């Protein structure tokens, strides 16, 4: 029974169907193509280009080609050879002439403090040096005899390098290619990643606990009252983030409204005012307030669709209030929880302005360090590496979330 079914014009039905489907797919693609191109050009491409910086830094190898070549065969442990010194001097002369020595010096200085002045001052004298270059260069600055300088240069000379990603994870790339842990007093990133995670979890949980009853109330009240309440939720949502954060400063600071009230009601004394801001507490309070609408709105829209008759039916069959809620109502509100929790968590993990303003020292998050390297230290490579780690981390959490809650089991409205 393997006869081909044909369409009216004699072509096999299967092919005809494929043709028709292909046409409609093409049309669909044509419709989304402008948006796709826009997202590619303005979103995906810049992100990829910036993240590319986290593993690619050709500054040294492009500007100092001869010493890069000479260092390739060096094992990173033996006495530096005369060729390495000769190549270094030749590179220094060129870099000084092209005025690129500053970029080179900045790059090596990231690996070894003090290398900047060593490079710039040696480059000034490099032109006059004569063979043997080893003695001549050591004569200029005896730091050149230090093998640590050469190790730093070897690390810096790698164009494709794991050094920045390693640094983002509090590790350090050595000249021989091994990666070790950073000195204890300079380890910071992992601690901050964990704190970011902790703050995001606490904020999400607090938003859920605070937002669930409000959303329930909104969905059960008569329309007139609930609309009024909804406006109260939306009003701060429409207010500028900066304004809301600074008003929290006025509320929570030592001489602020909250502390004045505490003193007035005898909760504390005037010289024992609570530290509610410029620390983790301040970050948590302000973030929960700012992110609360992102939890309430999806919850509300889901709860609105849950028919009250289900809970009534459960009760009429003898369920207690708690059982009716837990077995009947709650499972139906899970898609709203899923959407709200994910929304709040993802927003919280990249939060930046609020911790910067009210975070003090122990309320800082990883985004504040990324900002520091973008704006202050100009180490964009490390900033990109931190961003890469954060991105992978979030994708991983997203994957776990999908396994536990299920992305399909989510409803935004």
């Amino acid at each position, binding site marked *: 029974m393997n006869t081909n079914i044909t369409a009216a014009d004699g072509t096999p039905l299967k092919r005809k169907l494929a043709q028709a489907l292909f046409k409609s797919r093409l049309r669909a693609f044509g419709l989304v193509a402008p948006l796709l191109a826009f997202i590619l050009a303005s979103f995906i491409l810049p992100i990829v280009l910036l993240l590319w910086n986290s593993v690619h830094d050709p500054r040294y190898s492009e500007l100092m080609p001869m010493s890069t070549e000479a260092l390739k065969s060096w094992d990173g442990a033996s006495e530096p050879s005369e060729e390495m010194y000769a190549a270094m001097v030749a590179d220094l002369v060129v870099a000084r002439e092209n*005025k*690129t*020595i*500053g*970029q080179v*010096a*900045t790059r090596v*200085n*990231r690996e070894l*403090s*003090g*290398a*900047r*002045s060593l490079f*710039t001052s040696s480059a000034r004298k490099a032109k006059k040096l004569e063979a043997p270059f080893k003695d001549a260069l050591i004569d200029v600055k005896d730091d050149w005899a230090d093998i640590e300088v050469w190790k730093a240069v070897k690390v810096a000379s790698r164009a494709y390098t794991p050094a920045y990603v390693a640094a983002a994870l509090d590790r350090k790339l050595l000249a021989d290619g091994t990666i070790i842990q950073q000195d204890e*007093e*300079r*380890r*910071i990133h992992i*601690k*901050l990643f964990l*704190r970011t995670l902790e703050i995001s979890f606490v904020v999400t949980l607090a938003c859920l606990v605070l937002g669930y009853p409000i959303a329930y109330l909104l969905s059960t009240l008569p329309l007139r009252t609930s609309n009024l309440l909804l406006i109260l939720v939306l009003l701060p949502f429409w207010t500028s983030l900066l304004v809301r954060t600074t008003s929290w400063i006025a509320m929570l*600071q*030592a*001489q602020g409204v909250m502390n004045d009230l505490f003193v007035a009601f005898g909760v504390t004394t005037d010289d024992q005012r609570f530290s509610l801001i*410029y620390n983790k507490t301040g970050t948590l309070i302000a973030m929960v307030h700012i992110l609360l609408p992102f939890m309430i709105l999806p919850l509300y829209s889901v709860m609105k669709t849950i028919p009250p008759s289900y809970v009534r039916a459960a009760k009429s069959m003898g369920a207690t209030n708690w059982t009716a809620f837990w077995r009947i109502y709650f499972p139906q509100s899970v898609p709203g929880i899923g959407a709200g929790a994910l929304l709040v968590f993802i927003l919280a993990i990249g939060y930046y302005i609020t911790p910067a303003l009210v975070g*003090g*020292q*122990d309320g*800082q998050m990883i985004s504040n*360090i990324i900002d*520091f390297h*973008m*704006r*202050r*230290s*100009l*180490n*964009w490579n490390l900033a990109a590496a931190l961003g890469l780690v954060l991105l992978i981390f979030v994708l991983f959490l997203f994957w776990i979330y999908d396994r536990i809650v299920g992305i399909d089991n989510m409803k935004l409205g």
Partner: protein
Amino acid sequence: MKMKSILLGSALGAFVAGAAVAESITVVSWGGAYTKSQVEAYHKPWIASTGNQIVSEDYNGGLAEVKAQVEAGNVTWDVVDVEFSDAVRGCDEGLLEEIDHSILPAGADGTPAVDDFIEGALPDCAVANIVWSTVFAYDTSKTSGVSGIADLFDTAKFPGKRGLRKNPKSLLEMALMADGVPAADVYEVLGTDEGVDRAFAKLDTIKDDVVWWEAGAQPPQLLADGEVVMTTAYNGRIFNAVASEGQPFEVNWDGQILDFDLWVIPKGAKNMEAALDFISFSTDTQRLADQASWISYGPARKSSGPLVGKFHDGTVEMGPHMPTAADNLGNALVNNFEFWADNQDELNERFNAWLAG
């Protein structure tokens, strides 16, 4: 009629400017009282004499915007007011134009510009305009009997919160001076591992009592709100809070750290010529002295010193409020940019780790 007068006006402007076409440049600075002092002393006279326009923008320091503009090949800023460390680093990284210092006018007394400027005020890519300093200050209505920098770190003698700038630069130096290191030896001590440990150990003693600030406008606010008892600050900001708002603040000059602010031009700036003209105009003897009547920052030219008069409202003699006044230099330190250029990566990292810990 109207058209005619506009034409006439621009013709006159062009005549004054030496037949140049009127241009518009973007000058970027730190905002607040500081930008106002520059607008009054530099911008207005320059606009009047050249017929050019100035768009004044504010920023919060750092080279991120300059770097982004240069790397994107779309430089919209023409002149930027930066800190010394950024002027040096920007020059190193090829983000700034080199400035030929021979274009700068001689001092009013005829001294060539290179000798008239304070030593170190003319690095390759920049021209200094002011000397400012990081000092510590307190509210005299609440605190009295402060003797020196050691008191900033002494929470037993002066209980209460301290405001500190969230940056190891200047802070580590102050910690060492408070710990008894003479100003002259600070960078030598800080160059050793033990010295860095010592500075952080000193910071540890007040870590729990610190409110960190980042923008220059914050410290006077923190003092006014009673949020801190003492705070480090830029001396001009405290002066303006006292002179303009009548706040009862006082600057303690012990352990002050002097620094330059400088004009730079981002690489590839579109109005190079006008930008250079603005820089040489604004850093002449008279202009620098004029600026000191709007904010208490010292002029970067020696020849401007004697011309510094009273605050613009005519009440306060500016001399004693300058960081460079002889009485204020008793125990003062000049920021060593070489040291910071070499060590900032490591010390920033350690400082950030210390903060987060």
